[in-house]
């Protein structure tokens, strides 16, 4: 997969939940090359004193356009909120390995908070050939993004008084789930994997790391795995959960 550098145009950039934005970008080639689980690197502004590109999971692809979902936290994303239609951005992608795709399986996707971002695109692809349930966990209703997938289970910690992983075992058993894909906070991914492992459910997780380059050159983004340190940007961001937690 060739990594491409492009100028992309902002089509739309709007707040979709409290402090969470969806940005749609028109690309010439990158969008078409993106597979579920890939990420792209974005320059937030050439006049910024913050130079490094920011990685964002691909949230959706529609023809030449792709969408990202981002939470405002820090200077980079703060600047991004002021993007308007027609603005152009430097884009690098597709980056990373992506999720494994299967057919004819019963699959559960578990997204915690912003972890829902890459799972939406994954759902679109997987649901063509599999039975897919999407479990979307947030802390409060304010941060809930309206996600349109066919089998959606929303979990709001504050309202239910428990975490999504407390309900995971039930969902796995009731639906005879064979594979689980998780993206979210580390604690959620690790706990959920332990439950899935007990039931022999194959699990993949998508990790985050501080990155400088995004394509394997700086060795800044490593994560500990059972077989030594690996680069999240090009050996991941998707890993088999057993590679990370044994």
């Amino acid at each position, binding site marked *: 997969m060739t990594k491409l550098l492009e100028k992309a145009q902002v089509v739309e950039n709007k707040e979709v939940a409290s402090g969470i934005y969806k940005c749609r970008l028109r690309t010439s080639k990158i969008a078409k090359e993106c597979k579920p689980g890939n990420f792209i690197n974005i320059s937030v502004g050439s006049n910024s004193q913050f130079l490094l590109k920011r990685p964002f999971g691909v949230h959706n692809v529609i023809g030449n356009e792709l969408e990202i979902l981002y939470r405002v936290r820090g200077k980079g994303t703060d600047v991004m909120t002021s993007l308007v239609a027609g603005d152009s951005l430097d884009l690098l992608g597709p980056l990373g390995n992506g999720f494994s795709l299967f057919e004819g399986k019963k699959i559960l996707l578990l997204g915690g908070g912003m972890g829902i971002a890459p799972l939406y695109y994954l759902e679109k692809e997987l649901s063509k050939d599999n039975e897919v349930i999407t479990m979307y966990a947030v802390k409060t209703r304010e941060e809930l993004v309206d996600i349109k997938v066919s089998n959606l289970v929303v979990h709001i910690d504050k309202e239910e008084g428990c975490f999504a992983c407390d309900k995971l075992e039930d969902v796995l058993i009731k639906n005879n789930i064979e594979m689980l894909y998780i993206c979210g906070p580390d604690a959620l991914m690790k706990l959920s994997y332990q439950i899935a492992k007990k039931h022999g459910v194959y699990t993949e997780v998508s990790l985050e790391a501080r990155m*400088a380059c995004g*394509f394997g050159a700086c060795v*800044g983004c490593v994560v500990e795995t059972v077989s030594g340190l690996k680069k999240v940007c090009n050996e991941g961001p998707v890993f088999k959960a057993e590679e990370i937690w044994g």
Partner: protein
Amino acid sequence: MKSLEVNLGKLVLQNPITTASGCFGYGTEYSDFVDLDSLGAITLKSITLNQREGNPTPRIAETPSGMMNSIGLANCGIKEFIQEKLPALEHLKKVKVIANIAGHSTEENVELAEILDGQKRVDAIELNISCPNVDAGGLAFCQDMAQLKVLLNKVRAKTDKPLIVKLAANVHDIVNLAQVCEGEGADMLSLINTVTGLEVDIENRKLFFSRGYAGLSGPAIRPIALKAVYDVSRVVKLPIIGMGGIANIDDVVKFLMVGADAVSVGMMNFVEPDISQRLVGGLQGYIRAKNIGLKDLTLN
């Protein structure tokens, strides 16, 4: 087209644009973005005898107009370097390959130089005695002139390939250091490595990097780098590869004007992965527009 060829003593580059160690992987990471054969030289990630995992995370912090790193010389080790990394560059005909070594001791550096001396694809060896991110070796070599002389002598004895010594600016007296290198047989100098700095994690009230100190790079250090090149080039005759914060063609010209013979692009490769090749074109355009040669890029 005007020639961009530069003579760095024994090392001839088709143009003075090179890439900095640790910012260009082992070269192939950039082949989607850059025609590697269009560059003057590529300097590969520092290598050690054994594979090194490097420092714990976090290894990266962004700073205004730059970044800090505490990678800790993570690398694949000399064996894999020779078996896998160098062969992947075999097909390149024009670009020079500079192998950067960063042993933790004199003996390790000597052994690395000896092994690399036998490698055809290595056009020059850069000795990194300025890494701020390790306990042994690295910057420590710059603190002890007697030890440094022994190191340079012994490494020099093991290789006929052009020997570049890479220095940092945050030392007691960089000009003196450069003179020692010149006296002990170095063919060239690379100036500068990252500048040692500190970052704080205020949320957790601790130092951000596990080792505390880390190396600052990027446009933030460019004035420091320019001064180092300027000061050293007034006194020392060795060719100088200037680096530190190069982000555009004006920066390249500045380094050449204050005394660098070639330049190296570091962290900006992460930001604009095709920048090195664009700078080759940029430099060509610059001298054409001014109707001058590379040699005319000096201070008045």
